[in-house]
């Protein structure tokens, strides 16, 4: 058998494998995209029912944040591009070996990211204070995130230790081994997250009883409902679902329970967060992450080859830049997936509470209290919004009412 025949066979096999992997990837996406919201559900035109002055105020409030975010991302990419260009020089500040020096360069990169974002965070605090969304001080903002930053430093060191050790052994194929490690870490973090947040049990017995009834109605075991005190740094109401399996939890921010929201509205929130668990959105989120972790790691491997690959510390600054650019580029996709899940959680909450009036009241209330722009521009919606707009959510409640009336 000649060399050219072998090469052709190798190419054919490689091509077939790539096509098979792409097919599996596409099938996984199609499966994860499934939603319990009825297919072809038409959203009716609805009146917002919010005072126009409030709408204008929320548009101004969010509009400024959009500009601030875009500016901060531009600065961030510029800083990281500069670091990718010149950052390898910091390797001479290291007496550590290959992996230790890579860790140092990774941490310096994160430090620069923190510095680049700092002015924007301070401006955000100023804007939030101006609109009475927070009582946080500027100094508090400056020092509040050090613990979080420390955790990020440790995380990047661990990630780089894994990647650089694998790349030292498998210079071109390290990403195949690294992606599953990161998915496993993501899953472990999701599992452990409820234990990392300081919360206390929900003390309002009727709401806790409703949560148990809703969990049963959604076909899952009771999920603990806990309250996180966030009053020191924000007035924005919020809630979230966290944990996997035995650690599943629903966490309500204390700002949701400070008297501004009625019990009917809080019940909708509880049903919505429980729906994230009953619809398995958290494991699905990990699966989505896995689908993008492999191509993402492959792109980083490809981009850093000219710097000697990820086995070399000099490639770390460039890898950081590629990672941030990939994150920015995938943000619209992430938001699309997130909106799909949130829409499903809204729908399941409506099916559970059967109270579209309370749901619509809650969504309106979010606009008046959190100053969510109820009708953001299309580009901003696609780029930034992880939830459906207020108008879409009110329309969904109305669609559910019409469907239920039939």
């Amino acid at each position, binding site marked *: 058998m000649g060399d050219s025949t072998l090469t052709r066979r190798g190419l054919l096999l490689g091509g077939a494998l790539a096509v098979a992997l792409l097919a599996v990837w596409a099938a996984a996406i199609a499966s994860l995209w499934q939603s319990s919201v009825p297919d072809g559900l038409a959203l009716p035109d609805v009146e917002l029912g919010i005072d126009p002055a409030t709408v204008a105020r929320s548009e101004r409030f969010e509009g400024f944040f959009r500009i601030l975010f875009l500016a901060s991302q531009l600065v961030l990419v510029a800083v990281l591009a500069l670091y990718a260009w010149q950052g390898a020089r*910091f390797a001479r*500040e*290291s*007496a*550590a*070996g290959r992996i*230790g*020096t890579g*860790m*140092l360069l990774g*941490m*310096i990169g994160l*430090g620069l990211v923190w510095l680049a974002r700092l002015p924007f965070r301070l401006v955000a605090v100023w804007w939030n204070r101006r609109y009475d969304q927070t009582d946080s001080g500027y100094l508090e903002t400056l020092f509040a995130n*050090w613990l979080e*930053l*420390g955790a990020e*430093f*440790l995380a990047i*060191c661990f990630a780089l230790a894994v990647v650089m050790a694998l790349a030292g052994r498998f210079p071109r194929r390290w990403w195949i081994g690294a992606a599953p490690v990161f998915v496993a870490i993501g899953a472990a973090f999701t599992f452990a997250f409820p234990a990392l947040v300081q919360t206390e049990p929900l003390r309002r017995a009727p709401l806790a009883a409703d949560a148990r009834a809703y969990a049963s109605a959604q076909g899952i075991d009771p999920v603990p409902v806990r309250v996180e005190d966030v009053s020191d740094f924000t007035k924005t109401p919020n809630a979230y679902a966290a944990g996997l399996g035995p650690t599943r939890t629903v966490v309500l921010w204390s700002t949701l329970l400070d008297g501004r929201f009625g019990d009917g509205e809080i019940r909708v929130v509880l049903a919505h967060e429980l729906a994230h668990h009953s619809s398995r959105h958290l494991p699905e989120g990990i699966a989505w992450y896995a689908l993008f972790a492999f191509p993402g790691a492959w792109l980083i491997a490809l981009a850093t080859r000219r710097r000697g690959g990820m086995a070399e510390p000099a490639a770390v600054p460039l890898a950081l830049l590629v990672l941030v650019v990939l994150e920015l580029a995938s943000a619209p996709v992430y938001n699309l997936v997130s909106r799909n899940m949130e829409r499903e959680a809204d729908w399941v909450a409506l099916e559970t509470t059967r109270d579209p009036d309370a749901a619509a009241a809650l969504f309106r209330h979010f606009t008046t209290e959190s100053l969510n722009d109820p009708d953001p521009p299309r580009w901003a919606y696609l780029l930034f919004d992880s939830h459906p707009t207020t108008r879409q959510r009110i329309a969904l409640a109305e669609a559910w009412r019409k469907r239920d009336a039939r």
Partner: protein
Amino acid sequence: MDGHPVRLRIDDDLRRSRLLVFFRPLLALPHLAWLWAWSWLVLAAAPVGWVAVVATRTQPHPLHRFFCAYVRYASQLAAFAALLANPFPGFTGAPGYPVEVTTPERLTQSRWKSALRAILAVPALLLAHALLGVLVTIALLAWFAALATGRMPSGLRDLGATIVRYLAQTAAYALLVTDRYAHASPALPREPEPRLFDPWETAR
């Protein structure tokens, strides 16, 4: 003091990178996590070394190397965290850091002094604990000074280095790397002065 087998060697030019100084507490975090893990292993191995020294008067080779690497690594980390040295240290305690302790070869030790080491080390450990507080203060002062000037004040560096040496000597004593008690003199070792020729000495 010059006779102590755990010595300090300084090869530092006092220059400091401001960026590394600014983020120093965070840059030390992965090392602190590593030291924490390593310390548990050392705590688990220490009784084994103690039994071996009491029984045979010498530390087994692998344990001696392990403890020496630990003492060197902890000293390098202390020097980095307290800004006594500029570069990011390695994770193995390998020699070659600008501020580092040199550890002795394996020695024959007294059985009785080794048997009572846990008790004998207490005063040195207490003093080491107090000196650690001083080192933190030095680090805090040095952080501002180095951030402003890009250099480490030599006085602060030398004071900090003396403390690091004491900490290393205490750890080495407690871990039976040496049987010499930690020496608290603030003097740093100097190269021996060359003796001047004294004609009167020979004339007498």
